[in-house]
């Protein structure tokens, strides 16, 4: 491959076929999803797409049941209870909401003044669940 040719391959991905129940479930749960790309981690089906101008990742079983989904949240839309749960020493660099079995948590990448990064998980009430150095 000549230097630079790799970049065209970004858009030459093989289309993955998924069971119709899975494709249908995506359309029902996220009706206006665009740019859908599928992958198959293990026995599950994972779609990454744009929906309501946000990046989302949804996982389904082979029967089309939606098991979990994640939504990228821009800095301006981060819920206040999440912001207030983050100690002042940290700056939020990324925020993703995670929906599993009716529960919402927030997966944050934060950094301190020395630019050390952490993965912080916060529950829907604003309680810090975990903090791990990245």
């Amino acid at each position, binding site marked *: 491959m000549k230097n*630079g*040719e*790799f*970049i*065209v*391959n*970004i*858009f*030459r*991905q093989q*289309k993955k076929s998924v069971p119709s129940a899975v494709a249908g479930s995506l359309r029902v749960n996220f009706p206006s999803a*665009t*740019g859908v*790309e599928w992958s198959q981690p293990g026995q599950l089906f994972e779609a*990454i*797409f*744009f929906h309501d*101008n946000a*990046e989302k*990742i949804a996982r389904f079983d082979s029967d089309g049941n939606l098991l979990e989904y*994640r939504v*990228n949240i*821009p*800095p*301006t839309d981060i819920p206040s209870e999440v912001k207030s749960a983050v100690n002042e020493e940290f700056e*939020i*660099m*990324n925020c*993703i909401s*995670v929906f599993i079995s009716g529960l919402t948590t927030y*997966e944050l*990448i934060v950094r301190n003044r020395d*630019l050390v*990064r952490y*993965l912080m998980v916060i529950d829907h009430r604003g309680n810090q669940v975990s903090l791990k150095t*990245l």
Partner: protein
Amino acid sequence: MEKKDNHILLSDEELVQKIVNERETNLFRILFDRYKGKVLDKCYSLLHNRESAAEFTEDILSKAYEKLPGFKGNSSFSSWLYSITYNHCIDYLREKKKLHYPEWNSRNEIPEIADDLEEDLSEMHYSRLMNILEILHEEEKAMILMKYKDEMPVKDIAAALRLSEGAVKMRIKRAKARLVFLYRKHYGDY
């Protein structure tokens, strides 16, 4: 000399095994020669400065040598070495150039996200795409290079850039949409 020549035929992983387990430290020279140019290219593509790129290459290969006992073979040696390379460069840029992806992303919103990313975009000319790649944020560019040029697993990209796997997947998705948007803006519809 003859011994070293025979070793040239060994795979990266076999060389690492001999360096670590049999303490044949001189064999690192083979890995050094094998990867110096590739690491230099990656550093230059992110730093855009030949002197710094050469300096970084020496630092990265020294760092790799020190970390060799920690190489467990869960990914290929090249993937492991490139993780160190990108991590070193991006950490430097984050600190010295004050890279701040969330702020940059807010200032550079994509007004229209195309739905045909996989349709006829394969007709885009690669040299033009490379021009567009240069105007992406350094972290988006690094992710595109890691995923599509070096074919690194998302897990390794996440570790190198100190992000979660979900964040990496979403940022790559956005970077691809931005490539298409900027391509159309600069060159029209192919």
